[in-house]
């Protein structure tokens, strides 16, 4: 059928929705390029550029030094041994929580998560008090344990990485198909056999995913090795030594690339596994509910208490040491370490809180904004945007921080305007943890049905109005959780920001490091306690505010 009547075209004015889409996607892309890609590029450039031109000279010089080869070896030694140990310990703990009927699961769970609330050097600090030269054990039992070196890093990083492994394994163990277990039982399989043939294979993706995550955390950790590594150096510490100690930026960049490679590989592996895991879940499985079994439950309870005590002891001894006159010689109670009469006094704690608040606010706007832009405006550029948004997961903090120095510490370019301010520190935090926040927000935005968007559009609303009136009111708990996550990270992070602080923008976590370095252990402990108290108080207050507002079931810690 062809009617020859001429038709009028509806007007094709620049549509405000399209403008909004181009703007949000463009702004997000620009920020990610500026604060992720350019610093990375600066690292790469500096590692390959030599006075003679572009080449591998810097790398050749690095590997010519036997000490540096040892450092690479050390990093992998710690990475692999801690990964294996943590996996086994955390698997047992997660199993006890998810698959037995032992008591006090709630408390044990919180203890397992404690290391998340403290800077990564607190574990090492606690270990010093416990097993150091003048530590509790050596003084009590007259032993001469030397904890500085491999074992110090091993223990403190195992504790530091524990909650991350626990969370992933706990999720993996939470979903199980009861029918599989029932059929295994009716076929006469014993508990060990069931574990090997059903439980373990059912959680293999979780195990692989946890392994990659722990490995990345351990090889990129800076706080614990710098405090307790002694002469046993790892790559993350070596970057710091080269840059802060000797101002050798080229060598810092080389080490950065060496650290970036395994981290990027591990993160790629983790993403690859995560996609398989998702595909293996079915909706028809019958959830497994553990049945009481006194002997088994008591055995697992004993194990869990032991693990929890180990984690708790490192935190408890830091708190204890902060309240004694002079560890370990005079153990009488004292509040004098909380006077903070050294250096900048208590100022770094306030700076940290300001940075954390700014970080949380920036993250709420830009990280949830990135998740929204990526979801609401599918364009050809979306895949690139998604890649840039999760790329920071593969970038170790020390590498990002060094990248910021190399890229932005040049007068005359725009970002230099905020250099040496708390804003650059907050921005660095936002992009350091961008991937985690972005994925959290994306998951939740995806869960709200697209028909709300469509219904809103057919009623005449612009995308901007839809965001304001419909989307935000539905996802605000997620937005809040993103803010809380970034606040917590900003309070405890050490690695990226250590390159960006100035005397006037000193942070609390860095103060702990400096105090420890000067041997002022009690004061370091007091400062660490202040950080942990701030994080916990912030969580409790937010939760309380939500309660008072009559809102329940918002999970702030993820």
């Amino acid at each position, binding site marked *: *059928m062809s009617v020859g009547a001429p038709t009028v*075209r*509806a007007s*094709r004015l620049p549509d405000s929705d399209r403008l909004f889409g181009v703007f949000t996607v463009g702004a997000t892309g620009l920020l990610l390029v500026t604060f992720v890609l350019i610093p990375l590029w600066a690292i790469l450039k500096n590692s390959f550029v030599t006075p003679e031109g572009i080449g591998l000279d810097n790398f050749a010089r690095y590997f010519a030094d036997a000490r540096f080869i040892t450092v690479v070896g050390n990093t992998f030694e710690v990475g692999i041994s801690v990964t294996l140990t943590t996996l086994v310990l955390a698997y047992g703990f997660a199993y006890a929580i998810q698959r037995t009927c032992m008591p006090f699961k709630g408390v044990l769970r919180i203890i397992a998560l404690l290391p998340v609330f403290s800077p990564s050097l607190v574990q090492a600090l606690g270990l010093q008090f416990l097993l150091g030269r003048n530590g509790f054990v050596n003084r009590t039992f007259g032993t001469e344990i030397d904890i500085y070196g491999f074992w110090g890093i091993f223990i403190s990083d195992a504790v530091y990485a524990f909650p991350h492994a626990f969370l992933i394994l706990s999720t993996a163990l939470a979903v199980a198909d009861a029918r599989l277990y029932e059929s295994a039982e009716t076929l006469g399989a014993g508990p060990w056999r069931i574990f090997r043939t059903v439980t373990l294979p059912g959680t293999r993706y979780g195990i692989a995913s946890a392994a990659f995550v722990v490995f990345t955390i351990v090889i990129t950790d800076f706080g614990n090795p710098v405090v307790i590594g002694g002469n046993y150096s790892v790559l993350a510490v070596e970057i710091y030594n080269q840059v802060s100690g000797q101002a050798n930026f080229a060598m810092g960049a080389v080490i950065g690339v060496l650290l970036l490679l395994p981290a990027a590989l591990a993160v790629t592996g983790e993403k690859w596994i995560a996609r398989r895991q998702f595909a293996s879940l079915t909706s028809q499985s019958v959830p497994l509910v553990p049945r009481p079994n006194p002997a088994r439950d008591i055995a697992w309870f004993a194990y869990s208490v032991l693990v929890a005590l180990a984690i708790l002891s490192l935190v408890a001894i830091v708190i204890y040491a902060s309240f004694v006159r002079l560890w370990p010689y005079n153990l009488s109670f004292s509040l004098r370490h909380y006077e903070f009469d050294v250096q900048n006094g208590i100022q770094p704690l306030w700076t940290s809180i300001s940075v954390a608040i700014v970080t949380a606010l920036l993250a709420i706007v830009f990280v949830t904004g990135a998740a929204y832009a990526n979801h609401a405006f599918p364009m050809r550029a979306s895949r690139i945007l998604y890649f840039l948004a999760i790329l920071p997961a593969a970038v170790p903090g020390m590498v990002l921080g060094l990248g910021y120095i190399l890229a932005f510490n040049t007068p005359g370019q725009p970002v230099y305007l905020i250099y040496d301010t708390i804003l650059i520190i907050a921005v660095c935090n936002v992009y350091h943890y961008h991937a985690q926040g972005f994925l959290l927000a994306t998951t939740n935005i995806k869960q709200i049905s697209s028909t*709300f968007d469509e219904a*809103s559009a*057919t009623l005449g609303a612009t995308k901007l109005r839809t965001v304001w009136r419909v989307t935000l009111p539905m996802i605000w708990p997620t937005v809040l959780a993103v803010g809380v996550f970034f606040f917590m990270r900003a309070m405890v992070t050490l690695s990226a920001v250590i390159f960006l602080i100035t005397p006037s923008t000193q942070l609390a976590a860095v103060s702990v490091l400096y105090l420890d370095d000067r041997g002022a252990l009690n004061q370091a402990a007091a400062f660490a306690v202040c950080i942990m108290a701030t994080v916990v108080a912030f969580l409790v207050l937010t939760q309380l505010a939500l309660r008072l507002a009559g809102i329940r079931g918002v999970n702030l810690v993820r």
Partner: protein
Amino acid sequence: MPLGVSMFLSLRGVTRRFGSVLAVDHVDLDLSEGEFVCFLGPSGCGKTTLLRLVAGLEILDEGEILLEETDLSGLPARKRNFGVVFQSYSLFPNLTVARNIAYGLECRKWAKAKIEARVGEMLDLVHLGQHAEKHPHELSGGMQQRVALARALAPEPSVLLLDEPLSALDAKVRESLRGEISELQRRLGITTIMVTHDQDEAMEMADRIVAMNRGRIEQVGSAEELYWEPATRFVGEFIGRINVLSASELRAGFDGPPGETALAIRPEHVVLSEDGAHSGTVRKVAFLGNTMRLGVEAGGQEIEIEVHGRRRRMNVGDTVTFDLPADRVRRLAVSSR
């Protein structure tokens, strides 16, 4: 329909692909103002996609959609002024019933007092006056769908689009809402397209039914036309029941080579008679009150015969004779093209 008469809403060669799937395949359709049209077809035939194309929620690959001679392509859903009701009520959960209904008016920057008056009017229209301040989750499914209807109608849209608005509701609510929607539509005289896979719903409510299959229109017509004069085998089989005659014995006397067209007759048009031209054996008997449905094997195929008001019992194994009245046997195209 005569050329030159301008239609209210016209679809011309409307096409939409998803990868290699042709969801909507060169659809031509004209609607006059105030008409109630149903898209009817099995699940996956492209009804929703076609409706979404009209709404502006999907982008046309080919063709054009004209509203009073104006091409709508390039006009986003937001600017079309079409009211849409979705299968899942999609009321905004954070807004009260009244605020939901006011939403479209606020988007159009109506004055406050005018909005308030219109919301009240719409609430009365769907008999939900006393629920204005409730939130959607406090209402039953049927009530939510009435709010959705009120919300879609409040901004005085030029076309109302409904995508299976009743299929999520239970049977009783569905029944009453059918009547309510039809009555509203007639009262407001609004041009309406409703998608459904339920033939009863389409036949009861629509002025015209658009029977769709695999992204194409098979036939457009009133319920009577589609029932009595199905154009294609698909329409005959989808709307009501029909026997397709494949046995050469039964086809005898009707010209035409088999394959290109199908010969078909509805079960109630087959006439049982003592001296019928064909004979067969009863294989199935279903007694349904005032009607009885027989499955009769004749000439190597099974024929369904519906008999009304017959007292005598029939048994499996009985031999019956019947006629296929020539004026009742329809010649159906295998497909519309």
